[in-house]
C-alpha cells in the first residue's frame, strides 16, 4: 500500500522541477492576495482564478512529462495549424460576435495568436536543430519569413501588442542561434534612424498616442489617465506600502483595469517598495532558473526553446511593470502569473512545464 502511494508520488513528481514550481507558486500566491484586494474582495473572481490555476498546473504536469523530442515532432504541424487558424481569423473572424482575434471552433472560441506564442519558438527551434552544424545565412532568412508571416497576420487583426511580443519570441530564438551582431546592430540602427523619418507619415491618432505617453495629461479619459493614476498609486505606496486592502487609489476607483493589466499598481500601493523588490526578486529567480535549465539542455532544440520561453517570461514581466511605472507606453500586456485571466495563466504554465521537461530529460538524450 505504502509502496503504491510512493509509486504514485514518484510518477507525479519525477519530472517536476521543485525550484521552478516553488517560485511560480510564490508569484501566483502574491497574485491571488493582490487580486482579492483589487476586485474589492470578490470571492467569485478569486475562485475563478484558483480554478484556472488548478487547470494550468495539470497542463504543466502533462507538458513536463512530454519529452522534448516529441515536442520537436509536433513543431511543424502545430505551426501550420496556427497559421491556418490565423488566416481563418482574417477571413472568417469578423463573423464571430466579438473582436476579430477570435476563431469559433463550434464548441469553444479560441484565440489563435495565443497558440502562436508557443508554436513560433517551437518551429524555429526545430528548424535550427534540423540544420544544426551547417546553418548559413539563408537559414536565418527563412527563419525571418517564418516570423514575419504570423506577425503580419496578427498585426492586421489588428493587435499590434501581441504581434510585437510574438516577433520578440522569434527574435530570441534567432539571437540564441547565433544571428550575426552586424544584422542585430544594423537593424537596430536602421529602426532608430528611421524614427524621425516615419513621424510625418504617422496617422494623427498614432502621433497622439505617442504624445500621450510623453505627457499623460493630454488624454484625461484615455490611457494617459491610467498612466498618471498608476504612478500616483505606486509613488504614494512608499517604502512599506499602505497595507493590504488599504490602497486608497485602488479602493476609491481611481485605478482602471486594476485586476488585469494594472494589478501591479495595486500591489505597489499596498506593499510598497519592499513588496515590489520582493516580486522583482521572485521574477529574477524564475528567469534565472530558466536560464540554468537552458544552459544544461542537451540538444540545440531544447536549448533554443527553453531560452526563448525564459526570455519571454522576462519580457512579459518587464513590459508590464515598465508600463505601470510609466517608463513604457501603455500596451495590453498582463503581468505574468498575477493578472486576472485564465488564458494567460494556462499558456504561462505550459511554458513552465516545457522548461521542466527540458530539465528532466537533459541526461536521457545522448549528445
Amino acid at each position, binding site marked *: 500500500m505504502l509502496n503504491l502511494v510512493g509509486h504514485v508520488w514518484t510518477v507525479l513528481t519525477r519530472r517536476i522541477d521543485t525550484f521552478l514550481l516553488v517560485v511560480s507558486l510564490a508569484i501566483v500566491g502574491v497574485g491571488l492576495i493582490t487580486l482579492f484586494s483589487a476586485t474589492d474582495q470578490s470571492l467569485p473572481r478569486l475562485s475563478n482564478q484558483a480554478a484556472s490555476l488548478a487547470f494550468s498546473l495539470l497542463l504543466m504536469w502533462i507538458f513536463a512529462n512530454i519529452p522534448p523530442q516529441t515536442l520537436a515532432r509536433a513543431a511543424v504541424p502545430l505551426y501550420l495549424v496556427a497559421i491556418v487558424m490565423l488566416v481563418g481569423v482574417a477571413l472568417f473572424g469578423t463573423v464571430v460576435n466579438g473582436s*476579430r482575434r477570435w476563431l469559433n471552433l463550434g464548441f469553444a472560441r479560441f484565440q489563435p495568436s495565443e497558440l502562436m506564442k508557443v508554436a513560433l519558438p517551437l518551429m524555429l527551434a526545430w528548424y535550427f536543430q534540423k540544420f544544426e*552544424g551547417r*546553418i548559413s545565412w539563408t537559414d536565418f532568412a527563412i527563419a525571418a519569413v517564418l516570423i514575419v508571416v504570423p506577425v503580419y497576420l496578427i498585426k492586421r487583426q489588428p493587435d499590434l501588442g501581441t504581434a510585437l511580443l510574438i516577433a520578440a519570441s522569434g527574435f530570441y530564438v534567432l539571437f540564441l542561434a547565433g544571428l550575426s551582431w552586424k544584422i542585430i546592430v544594423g537593424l537596430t540602427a536602421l529602426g532608430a534612424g528611421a524614427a524621425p523619418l516615419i513621424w510625418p507619415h504617422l496617422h494623427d491618432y498614432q502621433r497622439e498616442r505617442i504624445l500621450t505617453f510623453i505627457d499623460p495629461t493630454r488624454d484625461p479619459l484615455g490611457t494617459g489617465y491610467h498612466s498618471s493614476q498608476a504612478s500616483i498609486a505606486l509613488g*504614494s505606496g512608499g517604502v512599506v506600502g499602505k497595507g493590504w486592502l488599504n490602497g486608497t487609489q485602488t479602493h476609491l476607483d481611481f485605478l482602471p483595469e486594476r485586476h488585469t493589466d494594472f494589478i501591479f499598481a495595486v500591489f505597489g500601493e499596498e506593499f510598497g517598495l519592499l513588496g515590489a523588490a520582493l516580486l522583482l526578486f521572485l521574477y529574477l529567480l524564475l*528567469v534565472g532558473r530558466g*536560464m540554468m535549465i537552458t544552459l544544461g539542455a542537451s540538444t540545440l532544440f531544447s536549448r533554443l526553446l527553453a531560452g526563448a520561453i525564459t526570455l519571454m517570461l522576462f519580457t512579459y514581466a518587464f513590459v508590464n511593470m*515598465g508600463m505601470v511605472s510609466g*517608463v513604457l507606453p501603455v500596451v495590453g500586456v498582463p503581468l505574468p502569473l498575477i493578472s486576472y485571466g485564465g488564458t494567460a495563466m494556462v499558456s504561462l504554465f505550459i511554458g513552465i512545464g516545457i522548461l521542466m521537461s527540458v530539465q528532466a530529460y537533459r541526461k536521457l538524450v545522448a549528445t
Partner: protein
Amino acid sequence: MARLLFSSRRRRYDDGGGFGALRNAEQAQFLFKRRLAIAGVVVLVAFGALFGRFVYLQVFQHRHYQTLAETNRIAIVPIVPNRGVITDRNGVVLAQSYSAYTLEIQPSRVKNLEETIDRLAAIVDVQPRDRKRFRKLLDETKNLESLPLRTRLTDDEVARFAVNRYRFPGVEIKARLFRQYPLGEVASHVVGYIGRINDRDVARIEEWDETANYKGSDYIGKVGVELAYERELHGTTGVEQVEVDSGGRAVRTLSRTPPVAGNDLKLSLDMRIQQVAEEAFGARRGGLVAIDPTNGDVLAFVSKPGFDPNLFVEGIDSANWELLNDSPDKPLLNRPLRGAYPPGSTIKPFLALGALTSGKRTPTQVIHDPGFFQLPGAAHRFNDDKPGGHGVVDMYKSIVASCDTYYYILASETDIDDTWRFMSQLGFGQKTGIDIEGELTGVLPSREWKRQRFAGPNYREEHRKWYLGDSISAGIGQGYNAFTPIQLAHAIAIIANDGVSFRPHLVKSIRSLGSGEVREIARESTHTVPLKPEHLAVIKNALVGVPKEGTAAAAFVKVPYVSGGKTGTAQLYSLKGEKYIHQKVDERLRDHAWYVAYAPADKPKIALAVLVENGGFGAQAAAPIARKVLDYVLTGQTQAGPAAMPAIPPSTEDESD
C-alpha cells in the same frame, strides 16, 4: 554575402577543418553560452532599471505622490452627451432621448447578489424579466462597472429607495439618457434602433479611435439611420472633475467640460406619405420606396411588416426576439434594401427604351403575337399570358397591355451584354448608394455574371455558358433578374427625370445643436443617362397609357391627375404547363406583385416602386397601394385604411399582368 552575415561562426568552421565534429559542437556550445550570458546581463540591467524606477517613485517622489494621493479626491467622470434627435422633413420626431432614473448595482461591491435583489424587490418593482436581463448583462460584462437592474424608475420608487439607500451598499440610482421612438413601427426600418455596446461595437469604436469619446456611453446605433449616422448622432463626451469623500461618493464638482450633444438629423421622409403608404399595405407583406426624382429625396420607405424599435433599446427579451426572428413574415428584413425580387413585367419599359436607343426597334414597328414564342429549331414554347395572343403589337401596346411575346422576340435579337450595358446605366444590379447600410446589389445578368456565379467546382462549363434561352426569360424580367425595390424606384425616377440620376438619400440635413449650423446633404446628380427626348417621349406616353387604358386601369378609375406606371408580376413557382390560379397556389408560393409609377406625368414630383410579396397580380395587389400614395401626394386626400383590391373583370384577367 554569406561571410558578411555570418562571419564569426563561419570562419571558425571553415578554417578549423581539421578539428572534426566534436570541436565544432564545442564551438557552438561556447557561442551559445556567450549569447545566453549576454541575455542574462540584459535581464539584470532591465530589472535593475525597473528597481531604480521604483526607488525613484516610491522613495524620492514618495512625498509628492502621497500628497497627490491624499488630495486625489478628484475623480474624473465622463458626461455622456445627449444623442441627436431624428425628425422627418417636417419636424415630426422619430427618435429622441430623454432622461430617466435607473437602479444600478455594482456587482463587485455586493456580497450576495440574489439576496440583495430580493430585498430590492420589496422596495421597487422587479419583474422576473428584469432579473433575467440583469443576469445576462452580468455574464456578458468583463469589467467591474455598475449594471442596471431596473430602468425608468417612477418618482415614488426613487423616493422609496433614497430612504433605504444605507441598506444597500453598491446599489445606486443614476440619471441616464434613454432613447425613445414615438412612432413605434412607423418607418422602423429607416430609423433603426440603438442597443447596448457589445464586443463588436467596441472594435468598431477602436477603429474610429473614439474609445475615449465613448467612455460612459452604453448605447450605439445598431440598424438603419441610427447605425449609418452614429458618429453624427453620438456627440462629444464631456468631462467632470468631482471631489469625492472617503467613501468615494461625489461631494463637489471642481471643473466641468460640458458634453456637446450629437447632431440632429432631418430625414427626407414625409411621415404623412409614409403613414398613408404603410396603412395602404394593411396586413400585406412587401416594400415601397417613393423618391423625389428631381433630387433623390426618399419621401417614403416602407418595409412591411415592421417592428417596434423601442423593444431593442434595453436589450430585447427572448420571447419578443423569437417572435420577431422566427416569424415567417420576417419583420426584421428590410425589404426595399435587402430583398431582391424578379422584376417581372416592370422591366419592359426599360428594355423598350434600350431597344429604341440602340435602334433595334422603332415605335411603330409591329410584331404578330400568336400567344407564344419558339426559338428556331426548338420545341419549347415560351407562353404569353394571354392565350391566343395579343395579335398585332407595336411598342405602345407592348407596354400598355404588357405583351410577353414582343419582349421574347426582342430578347432573342438582343445580345445579353448589350442589355446589361444599357440597363446598368439605370442602376439595375448595382447599389443605389442610399445612406443606410446593408444594401443588396441584386442581379442584372450578363455573360460575365453567369461565369462568376457558377465558377465553383460543383459546376461544369455548360452551367457557366450563356444560352439564348437565358436571354428569353430575362427578357420579361424573369430568369436570373433580381432587383431590390429601391433599385426599381431609382430606375423609374431616372426615367421620370429624363435620364438625370440622383443618389437616393434618407437624411436631408444635419443640424449641429451647439452652433446651430445646418449642413444640407448634397443632392448629387450621379450621372445622366444619354437618352434621346423623342425616345423618352414614346416610353412615357406608353407608361401614361398603363393606368389610363392598360393593365392598371382598374386601379386608377377616375383619377384627377395624370400618372405613368407599369405593373409587374414576378413568378416564384413554375407551374409546368398548368394554368396559374391564384387561389389554388400555396400563399407563400404565389407571385409577387409590382407596380412602378411617377406623377404628375408632365412634371413628376414623385416616383415610386411598390412590391407586395405573394400578392399575385401587380395590377390587383400593388397598383392600388401606389394609387393611394399618389392620391395623397397630388390631391392631399386619401381614404384611410388598407388599399382595396379591385376585382379583375373576367375578360381582362389574362391581361392583368
